[in-house]
């Protein structure tokens, strides 16, 4: 069952210390309105799992500036100088993950898989502390599944059954994250009646979604 709620209600579901997957790529396809509400609530000590920490003036970037994040598991922090500053000052823990590995670790978490074997990161600092497996004479790194308490997604359109449609390049990490969290909240530009999204066009089936929130663009 999917319920339509308000931005503030959505933000209140994120408690101090929660692990939160957040969709988006430098903020494009990110639930930026819900994040604004998280900033108002000033929820603390979050573990964020996301592609990047955006820019200081948008989305996750603002959570960084407002010091609401304890740890971030991301692929890239170069677009937000404040993330680097907090990391160097020991205020924010950063785990850098190759982008394809991040996507597959989340997919594994949501797909009931025990891990991912990849060559990305071999003979680099990424392999430190990880198991290496020889598969048919080739080395692979074992990367562990990722799950979270909450996934905050952004979709262009939802129907009232929670089926999601993403426009353009906004899809990015949203569909995999929908599968890997205990609670899934999707911020959407538009909410339509059941039947108005053709089943052929559904990119995330509503069974993965608990709440939808009308966001502002």
């Amino acid at each position, binding site marked *: 069952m999917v319920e339509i709620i308000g931005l503030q209600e959505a933000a209140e579901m994120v408690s101090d210390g929660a692990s939160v997957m957040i969709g988006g*790529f*430098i*903020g*494009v*396809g990110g639930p930026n309105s819900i994040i604004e509400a998280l900033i108002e609530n000033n929820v603390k000590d979050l573990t964020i799992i996301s*592609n*990047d920490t955006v820019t200081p003036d948008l989305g996750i970037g603002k959570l960084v500036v407002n010091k609401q994040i304890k740890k971030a598991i*991301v*692929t*890239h*922090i*170069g*677009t937000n100088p404040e993330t*680097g500053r907090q*990391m*160097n000052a020991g205020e924010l823990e*950063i785990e*850098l993950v*190759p*982008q*394809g*590995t*991040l*996507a*597959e670790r989340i*997919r594994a978490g949501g797909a009931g898989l025990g891990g991912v074997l*990849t*060559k*990305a*990161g*071999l*003979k*680099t*600092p*990424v392999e430190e502390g990880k198991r290496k497996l020889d598969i048919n004479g080739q080395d692979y790194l074992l990367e562990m599944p990722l799950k979270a308490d909450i996934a905050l997604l952004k979709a*262009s359109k939802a129907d009232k059954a929670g089926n999601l449609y*993403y*426009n*353009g*390049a*906004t*899809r*990015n*990490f*949203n*569909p*995999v994250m929908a599968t890997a969290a205990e609670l899934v909240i999707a911020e959407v530009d538009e909410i339509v009646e059941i039947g108005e999204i053709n089943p052929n066009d559904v*990119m995330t089936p509503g069974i993965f979604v608990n709440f939808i929130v009308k966001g502002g*663009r």
Partner: protein
Amino acid sequence: MEKAQIIETIAKRVAKELNKGDVVNLGIGLPTFVANYVDAEMQIIFQSENGFVGLGPAAEKGEENADIVNAGGLPVTILPGGAFFDSSLSFSIIRGGHVDKTVLGALQVDEQGNLANWMIPGKMVPGMGGAMDLVVGAKKVIVAMEHSAKGKPKILKKCTLPLTAASEVDMIITEMAVIEVTADGLVLTELGPETTVEDVIAVTEAELIISDALK
């Protein structure tokens, strides 16, 4: 050479490495200029790791679509025949060997084809983004960069910075040279405009094998 001329020289030369119908991923920065020198008749399909193939030119002013950006977050276009997908499929394309060529910048490259381009410990740690997956998965890895950092060699005997990947680089293209990475070491195959072998050696730390067919 002026900066703009350096970029043009490198980008034009990289463009010659692309074959008709190739699926190509261009890194952020200098590599993006390669697209400017690719003829439409080549039918190159550019991949954008944030989730599409059929990447077109930058969006015209006033025509930007906030939902269509490249991996650097800049507004771009998608060409007819293109397709959007999620990050998981995007990296299946990348890691799975479905990208013919990837073109990236580098901080350092060495004689074994090792690449360092994602961090300088204690100074600059932007993160690897999709670079580690790209260099491991693409069929051919082309490093496109300025030959040296203001005279300080970037093509080394052995990389000193943390690696992006080991032994994955196939070719290095700079404003001064085209260098192929082989089992025997680095082979200098071409010289840039108004450049001599001695000029190249002077700003290269790695041992260079001079090709018999040097152009």
